[in-house]
């Protein structure tokens, strides 16, 4: 079954007149009537993780609640709270309670799950105020701001959506879609960033296929599409907001970078690298520059992969970023291997995620170098 970005359970709840939001992998229902310990009717909010049905039921039957302890009509607490201090933040709202109430057959859908929890609370509220209901039929707030075409069950299942949220509102730029840039896109497209902007004036040729994620078909080479268009077409299958610029960055176009939150640079041209990195640094924009060198020694390959990290607070690495083209040097080669491009992208994406505290960020590595010769990573720290 094709999973659309429109959640059918949320749509159904919304169509029934409830105030529904789909945010960060959760379905949230607002205006949920319940009874507090003072036997007053109050209104709270439910949130449940959007889940994939497995073996006929959803795996997580719990629900989060924003409000005080719900009671029956006599003011006696309803015994289903398993975490009184859950305090999960979703969409600037703190859900303080976690409930557990599971029918023997489990829940077949998020819809069934939410209707059950709504019923448990609203039935008690209706005994005090017959007009208490979650159905308001007013300004239905069905919102789905997810960047993905289909839901990120991976993050939901691992319960790390609040951590992934740290990346959510970013506008990311990838300059250069060669081997490293294409792997950067592969990884970044699987994060909930708001927008991904691809910049490259080159076209996709047969040699590119051997340094790109996935497998290109032979027919693709005849069309000689711009790399940005080719990759946008593929990755728009998972990420909604990919923008393409089939150009090279120069004096006339560089200002397009001003609106980005974070930029990845994966280009071969030293002069362009110098201009772009200097520009971004002058603007106080955070960026990661990637690059590698591979050459031949005793009929084997050796070399290194570099990831340079520059921010407004830590601008020092700018002076170490290579901007020479090494055109007249015996060490100048254009040997690049897919796994080295992929590793360069991996190191860059991990550094970026550490910047935003997705991963713990204890040290500030400004320059990360993996050398092939000794299978070793060394860092230059702030």
């Amino acid at each position: 079954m094709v999973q659309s970005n429109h959640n059918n359970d949320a749509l159904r709840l919304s169509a029934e007149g409830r105030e529904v939001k789909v945010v960060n992998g959760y379905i949230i229902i607002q205006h949920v009537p319940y009874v507090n310990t003072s036997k007053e009717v109050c209104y709270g909010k439910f949130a449940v993780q959007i889940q994939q049905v497995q073996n006929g039921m959803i795996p997580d039957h719990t629900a989060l609640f924003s409000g005080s302890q719900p009671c029956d009509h006599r003011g006696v607490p309803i015994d289903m709270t398993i975490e009184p201090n859950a305090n999960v933040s979703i969409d600037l709202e703190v859900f303080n309670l976690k409930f557990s109430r599971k029918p023997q057959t489990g829940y077949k859908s998020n819809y069934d799950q939410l209707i059950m929890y709504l019923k448990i609370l609203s039935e008690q509220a209706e005994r005090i105020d017959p007009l208490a209901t979650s159905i308001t039929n007013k300004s239905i707030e069905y919102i789905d701001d997810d960047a993905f075409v289909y839901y990120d069950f991976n993050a939901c299942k691992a319960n790390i959506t609040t951590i992934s949220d740290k990346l959510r509102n970013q506008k990311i730029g990838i300059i250069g879609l060669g081997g490293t840039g294409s792997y950067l896109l592969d990884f970044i497209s699987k994060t909930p960033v708001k927008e991904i902007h691809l910049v490259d004036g080159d076209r996709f040729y047969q040699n590119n296929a051997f340094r790109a994620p996935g497998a290109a078909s032979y027919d693709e080479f005849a069309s000689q599409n711009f790399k940005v268009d080719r990759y946008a077409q593929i990755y728009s299958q998972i990420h909604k907001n990919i923008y393409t610029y089939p150009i090279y960055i120069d004096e006339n176009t560089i200002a397009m970078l001003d609106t980005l939150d974070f930029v990845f640079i994966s280009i071969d041209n030293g002069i362009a690298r110098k201009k772009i990195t200097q520009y971004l640094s002058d603007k106080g924009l955070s960026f990661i520059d990637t690059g590698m060198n591979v050459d031949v020694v005793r009929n084997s390959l050796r070399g290194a992969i570099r990831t340079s990290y520059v921010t407004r607070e830590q601008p020092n690495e700018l002076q170490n970023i290579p901007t020479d083209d090494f055109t007249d040097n015996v060490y100048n080669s254009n040997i690049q291997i897919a796994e080295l491009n992929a590793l360069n992208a991996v190191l860059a994406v991990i550094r970026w995620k550490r910047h935003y505290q997705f991963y713990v960020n204890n040290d500030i590595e400004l320059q990360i170098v993996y050398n092939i010769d000794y299978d070793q990573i060394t860092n230059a720290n702030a």
Partner: protein
Amino acid sequence: MKKEVFKFKVDSNIFESEKSVISGAEMKSIAGLSPDITIYQILDKKAGIKIIQNDSSVDLSVSGVEKFGVIIQNFSCTLKLNSSDIQWNKQYISYDEVVSLVYGTNEVLKVSITYSHGPETNPNGNLLIGEIILVKDFIRITADGTVKS
């Protein structure tokens, strides 16, 4: 009132200076070393060394400025440079010297240099522009113009 003195260590010997800021020549004099001897300061965070010239000014009051060493004369070792053996006749090597060895130029090229299996002062790390490290036999050094993507 007791006058403040500034302690510093050259190799394993501890010395004192009444002045917080002294020259390299003064430091050698206090340590009983010939002016012809080359000394170095051991930098924090195992980030290599700084050569102290006779006319260099050293502020001993600055935190972390206290450990120094004497460069061994007639030193010789084998560097594993980009996986090839290179004979080297100094106890230290600078960023510029690595670039010169690998690229055969005295131009200031921006390259990525790493080292490992180094002496205790700088066992491993990245050698950046302007930096110097101590070397020992079979220290592993790589230098690459990492510009391809």
